[in-house]
C-alpha cells in the first residue's frame, strides 16, 4: 500500500511567508505569547510528545531542554544544527529549502522555552547556496514582527543569526560544533559537562537538529499528548527519510514511525530497485548505521526496531545498495568508500580512532588484494574495536569499526 508522504512536517512546507501564515504558521508562537504560556509548560508539552532528536543520537528533546538552568540572569543559547554531513543525508536541506519559516518558528519557540535571547543556525558550508534564502526568510519573519524586540508586544525578544561552517563532518557533533563556533578546530569535548550547562563560551546551550526544531510548532499546535499518539511509543511522530542509492525514485519522504517497513520505503516510495541492479541491503540511518541485508528489510522504521537489529535510524538516510549486473566486487568499493570517509573525517583528537580508522582501511586493502580472508578481517577489526570502544571523545571511531565488521560478516559470501 502506498503510504502518504505528507503527514506533519511536509504538510507545513511553504517557502512563502504569507502562504505559511495562511496555513496556520506562527499561530503556535502567537498562542504562547498571547496566552502567557510559561516556558516550563512548553518544556512539559515537548516532554509529553516524546519527541526524540532527529540528528542521529535520538535523545529526548524535552529532557535536553529541562537540563538548562532556569535562572533568568544567566545568558543562554539555542543552536540549530544544520550541519547534516552523514553521507546519504539530505533531509534537513529540504526543510531549509521548503519550510524555512517552520524551522524559524520552531527556533523561536525553543528559545523562549529555554530562555535564549540569541540563537544561531550552524549551516554547513556545503549548503552555502542556501544562505541567502535563509537570511531572507529571517528578515521577513522579523518584518512581520515575529522576531526582534518585544515580539508581538510581549516582553520576549529574540534574534537569529547564521554561522557558516568551513567543511568538517565532525562539527555535526554538538560539542565539536561549539568549539568551531568559538573559532577553534572542531574537536569534540569530553563529556560531562554537557552543553545544557556548559555550552557556547561556557553558557548553557541547547543544540538541536533542524528537523527536531521543525517539529516544535506542530507539537505546540496539537499538544504533546496528541503528538505522542502518532507513531508508536518511544518513537513518536513522523520521520523525514532521505532515500538514495539504487532505487528508481530518490528523494525526501515523510513516514510515520513504526508504520512503514524498509521494504515499503524501497517499493512504495522509491518505486523499487533500478533495472539491472541486484539489491543487497540497506544502510538505514547514514553510514554510521550498520547495514541490514536483503532478508532483514521487513522491519519497521523506528528507533526501537532498528536498535533491536543492532543498527539505528540515525540521520534518517536510507541508502539502498547492491551491485550492477554481475559486478559483485562493487560491494567492497562501497565499504571502502565508507571507511575512507571515517578515516578522512576522524578529527585526530583520540589516538585509537585516528590510528584505528586507518588500520581498518588497511585491512580492507588486504582483503581486496586477497592477502587475508574476509573472516580474518572481521577478527582483526573486532579486536581493534575493543581498543577503540569507550576510549574516545565521540562515537566516530567505534562506528567505523562496527559498520565495517557488520558489512564483512553479513556479506562474507559475496565478498569472498
Amino acid at each position, binding site marked *: 500500500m502506498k503510504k502518504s508522504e505528507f503527514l506533519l512536517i511536509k504538510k507545513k512546507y511553504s517557502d512563502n511567508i504569507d502562504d505559511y501564515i495562511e496555513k496556520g504558521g506562527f499561530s503556535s508562537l502567537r498562542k504562547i505569547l498571547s496566552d502567557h504560556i510559561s516556558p516550563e509548560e512548553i518544556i512539559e508539552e515537548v516532554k509529553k510528545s516524546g519527541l526524540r532528536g532527529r540528528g542521529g543520537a535520538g535523545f529526548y528533546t524535552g529532557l535536553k531542554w529541562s537540563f538548562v538552568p532556569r535562572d533568568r540572569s544567566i545568558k543562554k543559547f539555542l543552536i540549530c544544527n544544520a550541519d*547534516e*554531513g*552523514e*553521507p*546519504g*543525508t*539530505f533531509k*534537513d*536541506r529540504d526543510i531549509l529549502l521548503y519550510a524555512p519559516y517552520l524551522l524559524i518558528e520552531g527556533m523561536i519557540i525553543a528559545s523562549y522555552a529555554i530562555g535564549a535571547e*540569541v540563537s544561531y543556525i550552524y549551516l*554547513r*558550508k*556545503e*549548503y*552555502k*547556496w542556501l544562505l541567502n534564502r535563509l537570511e531572507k526568510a529571517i528578515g521577513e519573519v522579523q518584518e512581520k514582527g515575529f522576531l526582534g524586540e518585544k515580539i508581538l508586544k510581549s516582553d520576549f525578544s529574540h534574534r537569529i*543569526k547564521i*554561522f*557558516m*561552517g*568551513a*567543511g*568538517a*563532518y565532525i562539527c555535526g557533533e554538538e560539542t565539536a560544533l561549539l568549539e*568551531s*563556533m*568559538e*573559532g*577553534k*578546530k*572542531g574537536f569534540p569535548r569530553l563529556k560531562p559537562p554537557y552543553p545544557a550547562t556548559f555550552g557556547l*563560551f561556557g553558557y548553557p546551550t541547547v543544540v538541536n537538529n533542524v528537523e527536531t526544531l521543525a517539529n516544535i510548532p506542530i507539537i505546540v499546535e496539537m499538544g504533546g499528548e496528541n503528538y505522542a499518539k502518532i507513531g508508536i511509543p518511544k518513537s513518536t511522530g513522523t520521520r523525514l527519510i*532521505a*532515500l*538514495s*542509492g*539504487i532505487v528508481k525514485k*530518490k*528523494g*525526501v519522504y515523510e513516514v510515520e514511525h513504526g508504520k512503514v517497513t524498509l521494504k515499503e520505503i524501497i517499493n512504495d516510495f522509491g518505486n523499487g530497485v533500478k533495472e539491472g541492479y541486484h539489491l543487497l541491503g540497506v*544502510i538505514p540511518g547514514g*553510514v554510521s548505521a550498520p547495514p541490514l541485508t536483503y532478508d532483514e528489510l521487513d522491519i519497521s522504521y523506528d528507533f526501537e526496531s532498528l536498535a533491536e537489529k543492532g543498527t539505528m535510524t540515525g540521520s534518517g*538516510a536510507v*541508502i539502498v*545498495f547492491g551491485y550492477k549486473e554481475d559486478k559483485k566486487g562493487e560491494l567492497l*568499493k*562501497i565499504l571502502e*568508500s*565508507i571507511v*575512507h*570517509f571515517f578515516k*578522512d*573525517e576522524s*578529527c585526530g583528537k583520540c589516538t585509537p580512532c585516528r590510528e584505528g580508522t586507518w588500520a581498518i582501511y588497511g585491512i580492507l586493502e588486504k582483503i581486496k588484494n586477497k592477502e587475508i580472508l574476509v573472516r580474518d578481517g572481521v577478527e582483526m577489526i573486532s579486536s581493534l574495536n575493543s581498543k577503540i570502544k569507550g576510549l574516545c571523545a565521540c562515537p566516530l571511531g567505534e562506528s567505523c569499526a562496527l559498520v565495517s565488521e557488520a558489512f564483512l560478516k553479513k556479506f562474507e559470501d559475496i565478498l569472498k
Partner: protein
Amino acid sequence: MKSLSSSDNIRSKILEIIEYYNGNTALSLIPVLNMIQDTEGYIKKERIKEIAEILKINENRIYETLTFYHFLTLDKSEKRILYVCRGISCLLEGADEIIEYLKDNRDRLNFDFRECECIGLCDFAPAGLFDFNPVKNLDVKKIKELNEKV
C-alpha cells in the same frame, strides 16, 4: 565617492562581520576566514597577520583553526573549483567514473577539481559543487559544458 582598495574592502568586511556577531571576535573568526577564502580564493599570510591584529587572536591559533577545515586553504587556486562528491550514494551512481574522467583530463580543464565527501545532494547523484553551487546528475556531457562555459 572614493573607491575602496581591495585591502580596505576586506578590512571593512571583517569589521562588518564582527559587528554582525555583536563584537564577539572568537565567534567571528571562522566567518572571517570564510569570507576571505571566498573573496580571494585562499588565505594568504598577510591576511592572517591582519586578522590576528583586528580580532586580537594569536596567529598560531588562526593557523591551527584554518588548517583543520576542508574549505579553508593556504594555497591559491588559479582556477575556479568543482568539488565532486565521492560519497556512497554518488559512488552507487558512478561517481568513480566521473572522477576517473576528470583525473584523466585534468590538463584540459579550465577549472580545478577536488574530491569531497557527501554534499547533501545524494538524490541528484553523482553530484558536485561548482563555486559552492549545486551541479546535479554529473556526467561527461555536463562536465564538457561546464568546461566551455568557464
